[in-house]
């Protein structure tokens, strides 16, 4: 179920730090207006870390169509917290959220289980679970929301999530093709052909090479599931 995208479409900032954060916010607005489909945000640099979900949420509120892929450190996050953050971002952005695991010391088996639990939580509410039944006082339907009862080697999570199913359902996981075990789980694989490593200085040169992208959802816009 992994999509392969063709041509350089995904912007990977080379110089995103706390000092360049304001300029990268401005750049994100321009990249969005120009029609770029996906930007990677956040970093796990221990000396100057930036939380990917927080940055993606801020950018989402200032943009209309660009996809925002949040860097996540798998070692410091619980699946319930991560799923809740991703679902919130996907709702707030109208289905433009994506995520990727960043950090070299991660235990691949643990990361794979993390992905599995997050996905179970993201889809623990059926798409039609919110019924808004004013007469019966029922906001959601009891039969359409389910515990996940996950018991694994690393995580034990009862669920369900306390955020309804996000617009994309399973929020797409992005992986770099040179990464290891989690690759096989990703909805989207990036490589040097699809990714543009750019600094703030390089941005001006991008105006000539805006990719043509169409599609409703982020995954469709990036090539679709194959």
């Amino acid at each position, binding site marked *: 179920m992994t999509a392969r995208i063709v041509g350089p479409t995904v912007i990977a900032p080379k110089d995103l730090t*706390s*000092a360049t*954060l304001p300029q990268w*916010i401005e750049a994100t607005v321009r990249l969005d207006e120009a029609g770029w489909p996906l930007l990677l945000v*956040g970093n796990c640099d221990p*000396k*100057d*870390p*930036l*939380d990917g*979900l*927080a*940055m993606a*949420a*801020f*950018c*989402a*509120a*200032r943009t209309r169509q660009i996809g925002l892929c949040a860097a996540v*450190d798998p070692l*410091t*996050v*619980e699946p*319930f*917290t991560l799923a*809740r*953050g991703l*679902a*919130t*971002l996907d*709702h*707030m952005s*109208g289905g433009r959220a994506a995520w990727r695991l960043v950090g070299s010391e991660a235990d691949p088996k643990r990361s794979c289980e993390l992905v599995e639990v997050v996905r179970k939580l993201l889809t623990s509410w059926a798409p039609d679970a*919110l*019924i*808004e039944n*004013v007469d*019966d*006082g*029922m*906001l*959601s*339907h*009891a*039969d*359409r*929301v*389910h*515990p996940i009862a996950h018991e694994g080697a*690393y*995580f*034990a*999570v*009862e*669920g*369900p*999530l*306390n*955020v*309804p199913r996000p617009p994309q359902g399973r929020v797409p996981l992005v992986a770099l093709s040179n990464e290891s075990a989690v690759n096989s789980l990703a909805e989207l694989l990036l490589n040097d052909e699809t990714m543009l490593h750019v600094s703030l200085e390089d941005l001006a040169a991008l105006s000539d090479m805006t990719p043509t992208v169409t599609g409703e959802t982020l995954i469709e816009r990036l090539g679709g599931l194959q």
Partner: protein
Amino acid sequence: MSARNIALGLFVLGHGHNVGSWRSSPSPARDLLTLDYYRDLARHAERGRLDMVFFAEILYSYELAGRHEGALAFPTLDPFVLIPALSAVTEAIGFTGTYSTTYTDACATAIKLATIDRLNGGRTGWNIVTTGADRAAANFSVREHPDKEERYLRAGDYVDKVRALWQALPPLPQGEPVRVQAGMSPTGKTFAAKVAEVMFTIAKEKAAAVTFRKELRQALSEVGRDPEELRIMPGIAPILGGTEQEARANEERYLELLHPNTQLAMLSDQFGIDFSRYRLEDPLPMDDIRQAPKVLSGARDPARLIGPDGEVPTLGDYLRRQAKVRAHNSFVGTPEQLADLFDEWSETGACDGFNLMFPLQSEGVPAFVDEVVPILRKRGLVRSDYQSTTLRGHLGLREPKDTVTR
């Protein structure tokens, strides 16, 4: 102009602090899951020059015996995603989000808060909670929810670690995000004296609030902190009306939003038995209640369900009585009367401000900003414009580097 500057927070919870408030909205789900709804509330609060918008944290979905509880399981978004999104569409107001020290990693929390504080230029606060709900444990790979002493012990180390991480980063816009705390137990008070810069409290009686604030300020002195480093903000649920009669009519209207199914679900959650199987016109099933899985002392003592006359009320009567009971201070009256209350409470040293918990936010927030704030300004009780760009500045709190540390 008076030297007083009453601190004001807007505690946003779903459609309001009446759990049935969503029933008044034409599009409840869309409200709760799109930015526009929260943005409009934040912008109203910013127009009123409030100090901050406040968000709680809930780490589980309501269920009863493994079955999802549709009358109570409201979507509760991640405050640390909602707050940066709201920061992008506001200019000056502060935002405080709740994050658990029991179920999150200190390093991850430090990075989240630091990033948000950079994104919004120093408008961030962190409500430090240890998470009281044992139900959360099942979602965090923990067999047993740790007891209160253990949770607070961990919280102390956690806060130290977060602050040390902040100090190791490139400088943050307001020095550090503002530390907020809400526990009022003896353990909670000891913790607050050491770490809190804002305390969100429950205070229904002015005299008791004066005593509490004195004690806390004294406790700060005892650990070597300046008492001026603490703002105490009790919660209050105002229901406003042009006249007292109008306000009371609004109160009645809000009570009708509370569906019996929602109340039954709350009662079921409280005792761990399914109350929907009883008839509303029958007396409370006291035998079943005494044997319920979650019978506790204090507020949950089954004896408290019986009236002072010793008579067992019907389930329906009990629910009607219960609908008016609120954990926090409530107010029903005119804008002038609410301004009077704020004036008296702050003048007597009962508090430094209030956290506003409107039963129905879509009505209460604009009414407060349009009708109460102008009176408070005229009396010199609140500022007419922001004097600072940071939450720390709005609250008159100094940057940590300027304060005496332990």
